[in-house]
């Protein structure tokens, strides 16, 4: 994270107890606070919603021989987008959709989604994946979760550097290179 944005982010996220005098001092203060906090705090999702979002994000992109959604902090990214990017209506629709996912789980014999067996979870997400054009409810929430999980995962530093090995600059353009999808 660039220095300027550390301050900007924390300034927006927290009520700072005091602002040190001078820009440089403020940046250092912001960075030290950032390091102490470790992770970005959740600001929209409560603990139950965090558990639900984390569970589903990890099911969309699970840990395999490469990192999964949770270990590159996709749930934190989703919370950031819900808090600072989404408008009130989008946020409310999404949270209502999460409630609807738990309501669907309740009809499958568990109190909440996270309490379902792995097989039942897969069954429910498969149904929701087919309902991704829904304008509200569980189908919409899953579609949003999936889009944000894919985006947050593949734009993370660790995935770009360790999984995709993204090349940034090129010595020239080649438009006709043999390609076979890796097995």
């Amino acid at each position: 994270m660039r220095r300027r944005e550390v301050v900007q982010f924390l300034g927006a996220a927290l009520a700072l107890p005091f602002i040190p005098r001078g820009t440089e001092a403020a940046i250092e203060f912001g960075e030290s606070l950032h390091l102490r906090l470790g992770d970005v705090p959740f600001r929209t999702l409560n603990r139950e919603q965090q558990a639900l979002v984390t569970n589903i994000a990890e099911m969309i992109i699970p840990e395999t021989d490469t990192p999964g959604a949770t270990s590159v902090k996709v749930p934190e990214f989703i919370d950031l987008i819900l808090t600072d990017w989404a408008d009130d209506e989008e946020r409310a629709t999404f949270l209502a959709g999460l409630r609807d996912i738990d309501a669907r789980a309740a009809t499958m014999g568990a109190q909440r989604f996270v309490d379902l067996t792995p097989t039942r979870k897969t069954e429910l997400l498969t149904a929701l994946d087919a309902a991704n054009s829904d304008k509200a409810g569980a189908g919409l929430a899953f579609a949003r979760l999936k889009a944000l999980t894919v985006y947050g995962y593949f734009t993370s530093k660790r995935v770009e550097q360790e999984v995709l090995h993204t090349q940034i600059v090129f010595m020239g353009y080649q438009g006709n290179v043999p390609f076979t999808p890796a097995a």
Partner: protein
Amino acid sequence: MDDMTYDAIVVGSGISGGWAAKELTEHGLRTIVLEAGRPIDPAVDYVQNVRPYDLRYRGMGDRKRKDRYQPIQRNTGACDEWSSKFFVNDLENPYSFPDGKPFYWIRGRQVGGRSIMWGRCVYRWSDLDFEANAKEGFGVDWPLRYKDLAPWWSHVEKFVGVQGRKENLATLPDGEFQPPWELNAAEQRSRDILLAKFGGERLITNARLAVLTQNHDGRAACHLCGHCPRGCMTFSYFSSINSTLPAARKTGRLTLRPFSVVHSVIYDPAKKRATGVRFIDANTKQVIDVKAKVVFLCASAMESTRILLNSATAEFPTGLGNSSGELGHNLMDHIMDGGATGTLPFALDRREIGNRPDAIYVPRFRNIKTKHPNFLRGYGFEGRAERAGWDRGAGTPGFGAAFKKSLIKDLGPWEMSFGGFGEMLPRHENYVSLDPHLVDSWGIPALRVNCVYSDNEKKMQEDMVVSATEMLEALGATNIRTFKEDNPPGLVIHESGTARMGRDPKTSVLNSHNQMWDVPNVFVTDGACMPSTANQNPSITYMALTARAADYARQLLNRREL
């Protein structure tokens, strides 16, 4: 400040202003460039290699900030989390339009102007374009033909560094080209198929771009990062900052003054000449006059006209040099956002390496040999074939380990898209005027824009969808998705007209050398001068017209005629 006197004043430092600065200083004139916005330092401001994870929203943009400060600018794609800083704050730079008739005015106020974020597509015109107004009775006849501008296109192309493929098309003349990037496997196959099926009428060719494929004039060949609108540390694409302003600086005759918001041109009725311009220091709000023998307005089409409207005198009560009554009128843009995307059935065993910023072009094919029943003039397509990679994830069924693996290891099929860019006819009733109440942050009267697309443009947009679909069908594409957006004019960011050139001072503002009929030492060489827009991307034409006008001004000054 005392005695701010120069040989020439250039207002604006974008595509046209940069060229005016280069040419005038190289002609030996001590030149001041007044730029309304801030200076740009490539080392600090160019953000090409900033990765998504270095941005707060990973590239999704600071939406609430844009909603608040850039409600107009946010509508263009390049105004993203990296480059929104290159677009104006709409609250500081207001303008108005009638209810229900929006016009999106996309602006960049900084040294380099919009040349930092421009689309870099450069296409010459042919006489089909220059003669259209006269033949069809729209607007006024161009005072120029291809032969008048061809040497000046060559002049600017050689300096800019343009890649392109020679095609020998009468309607889209070749220029001074560096070798282009090759078409990718899917585009080459598509070109071959369309050549066979349409007999050469619909041609996929390599986009002609102001992006270097070979080192040129101290600038490096492009490294294909694919993020031109963020700036370019290797100066591989043409912009004022990368190219013309350094050349002007090298002469020792350039003074570049950022934060200088021009208010008006100062006119001396006794001499019937401009004596200079009045500007406001953006930071101190001090009003400052600067004098010169010649003034080049290159502030962008509508800004240059706004300056002239704000320069009204007793002799010119409706705006400086407006004896024709055409100042402010005949505003044009292009029309886009008609076309289609489809999934190609071939080349799945091929990929590309490197991110080309632009890929292919389909030159205009309507109203050339046969007349289209629904509209006049024509459009070209920009497009590309690409494989989406992980970006296809949200729209791909599935989840879990296999889904993840497929996004990492496979690329998805080639998707081919064609998006049209069509000509907008010049119409007197599309115009800008001064808003009677609105002023900008510096107290300068703002514009009111009255501009709508006509039926001709809308019919053309409908045809873009039809012909794009025909081409995709000819390619055997599946999953064809058409698009036709009802966007307001302005969004193509090719606004032009409002101070047109012509052959007759009674019906035009400028003569064939971009010189004001009424005030001979004022030249307007940005998009304001255009009597029509053709369908080609306009910047290279503004460059050629500017260089030509600067040469003419040099001749007049040498003959002591200004």
